[in-house]
């Protein structure tokens, strides 16, 4: 296997490409300028090349999203980096009550090309206010779409798609993914292969051998891919349970229709996410699947998520709270026992 680029590089290149092609793109965020290049180095090199469209801002998460929405209102395209996804809470009003609403509350569609980038997730010891997965709080906002970074989805296409929609989008980026490598050419590793379940490449699908033959289908956003793969490997080798993994690029709205034949064939579905318990994205997916495949599933859709807890700083405590590959392993295993 040739060594592919890291996910953070893929995203960085996509941003460079976008700035290069389109003079109306702006980027705003804290500490995003060179040489610092952002807390996670996603924006490296942009300010040097496109300085007048890359604005290092004060600490003002709400204000920055507002400014970006203002740019978008004038027809520009605006990207905001929220340094840690947890701080998007400070911009909740601007996202819910201004940007998303403006798309439709004036009685006609108003284009608003705004992407809020949000590094999320834990397992890095950053502690309770720097480790959350806030996706679930943004599900079901009319006019707002949610995407998640994935090692299967090329970021230039994802950015392109978000702007094409002409509505505000949040791109959640699991921090653990940045240093991972993109998957290319249908190969995941010695065991697993991947393709896409649909022509638009919305759903990446990881399988072993025949994609239509799995005991259970796992649905997980990009940040969970590593952990899901490790669990799948174990389940296959130790338990002879064949899993198929589906990774969507867009979390919301989520149209399960292209997946229904696979899900029905397997009869077992497990939705995995890092969010702590309660009102999760997974319960939204589960409801869609239950109502569409009523009578065709062998078991209720199983949700796997982190514990109902804040996320501790100490590694040994954090590990227990957050979804790990063994959490997934045991949850899937249980589906075949109960």
């Amino acid at each position: 296997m040739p060594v592919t680029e890291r996910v953070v590089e893929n995203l960085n290149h996509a941003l460079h490409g976008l700035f290069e092609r389109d003079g109306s793109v702006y980027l705003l965020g804290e500490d995003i300028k060179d040489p610092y290049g952002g807390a996670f180095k996603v924006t490296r090199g942009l300010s040097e090349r496109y300085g007048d469209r890359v604005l290092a801002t004060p600490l003002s998460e709400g204000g920055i999203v507002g400014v970006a929405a203002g740019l978008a209102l004038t027809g520009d395209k605006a990207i905001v980096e929220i340094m840690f996804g947890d701080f998007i809470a400070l911009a909740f009003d601007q996202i819910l009550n201004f940007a998303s609403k403006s798309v439709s509350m004036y009685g006609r569609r108003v284009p608003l090309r705004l992407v809020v980038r949000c590094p999320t997730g834990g397992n890095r010891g950053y502690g309770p206010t720097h480790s959350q997965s806030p996706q679930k709080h943004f599900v079901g906002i009319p006019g707002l779409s949610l995407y998640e970074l994935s090692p299967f989805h090329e970021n230039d296409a994802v950015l392109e798609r978000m702007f094409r929609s002409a509505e505000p989008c949040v791109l959640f980026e699991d921090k653990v993914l940045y240093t991972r490598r993109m998957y290319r050419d249908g190969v995941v590793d010695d065991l697993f292969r991947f393709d896409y379940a649909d022509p638009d490449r919305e759903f990446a699908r990881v399988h072993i051998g025949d994609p239509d033959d799995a005991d259970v289908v796992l649905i997980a956003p990009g940040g969970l891919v590593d952990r899901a793969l490790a669990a799948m490997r174990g389940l296959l080798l130790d338990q002879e349970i064949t899993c198929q993994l589906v990774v969507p690029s867009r979390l919301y709205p989520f149209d399960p229709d292209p997946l229904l034949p696979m899900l029905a064939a397997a009869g077992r579905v497990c939705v995995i996410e890092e969010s702590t318990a309660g009102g999760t994205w997974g319960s939204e997916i589960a409801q869609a699947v239950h109502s569409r495949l009523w009578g065709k599933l062998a078991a209720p859709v199983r949700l796997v998520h982190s514990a109902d807890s804040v996320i501790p700083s100490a590694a040994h405590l954090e590990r227990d709270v957050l979804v790990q590959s063994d959490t997934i392993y045991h949850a899937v295993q249980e589906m075949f026992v109960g």
Partner: protein
Amino acid sequence: MKLDNADLELLLLIRHFERALLELFEAGQLNGTTHTCLGQEYIPVALRTLLAEEDYVFSNHRGHGHYLARFGEPHGLLAEIMGREGAVCHGVGGSQHILRDRYLSTGVQGESMPVAVGAALHLKRTGSTGLAAVFVGDGTWGEGSVYEALNMAALWQVPLLVLVENNGIAQSTPTTTQLAGSIADRAAAFGVRHHLVRFQDLDEIRTVLGPSIARVREAGEPLVVEFLTSRVGPHSKGDDTRPAEEVERAAARDWYRRYAAAIPDRFGACDKRQRELVEQIVHEVASRPLSTWDERCLSPNA
């Protein structure tokens, strides 16, 4: 008394528009809520000649006067408030959520300040001489978004014009109990220029503000203009809990009374004309069919 006819007509158009709304509410012909600008009409009217078509204007809950001063056209706004055909936002936005060309209002106080900074940034980067004007009340200075916006506007020197209608009250709360220090000092805190306008004379306002606003356009220097004004009517409808003396004190400052006394003949004729015009418009708009909206606004997620 020097008073342009067009200005007088506009002042009285807004006055009768607002009065008509309160009457419609009382008659149970409107639902929801509304915030009239009774007593404050002269502010957008004075600014009318200082703002240009290329300018973005961000209005707030008390925005009918801002709208009418910009577009001079009451039918679409009334239809909006009544949910009738021809409504400028198809009846979806209603009184406080309006978008037309470069004019936008919304109902969450303070939210528009950073948005206006974004629009101003765009204007600056595209070499336009336009500016982004944003109307806020004194009470809105309680919101943190105002300061996040002022800071960025000052740091980036964008053409932001903050128009403060300081009517001494926020809903039921006197400014003295919700605003510490002063708006002048709050502008100064960010190195932003500030102008206090105590008078209501349109010419005087225009003369004083003209050069300052020109500098916003030319140098991209943000500016805060604070109008000391009076809310002659209730906050929304029937919710004026101010003591009678205070309401009377506000009314005593009303341009309407002063002009009626100063130029009784011209004023009386124009007043009658505009009152009748608004009556007609109400009648006409009320008879229109209900508004319909763009189907693509349902399930707006693309």
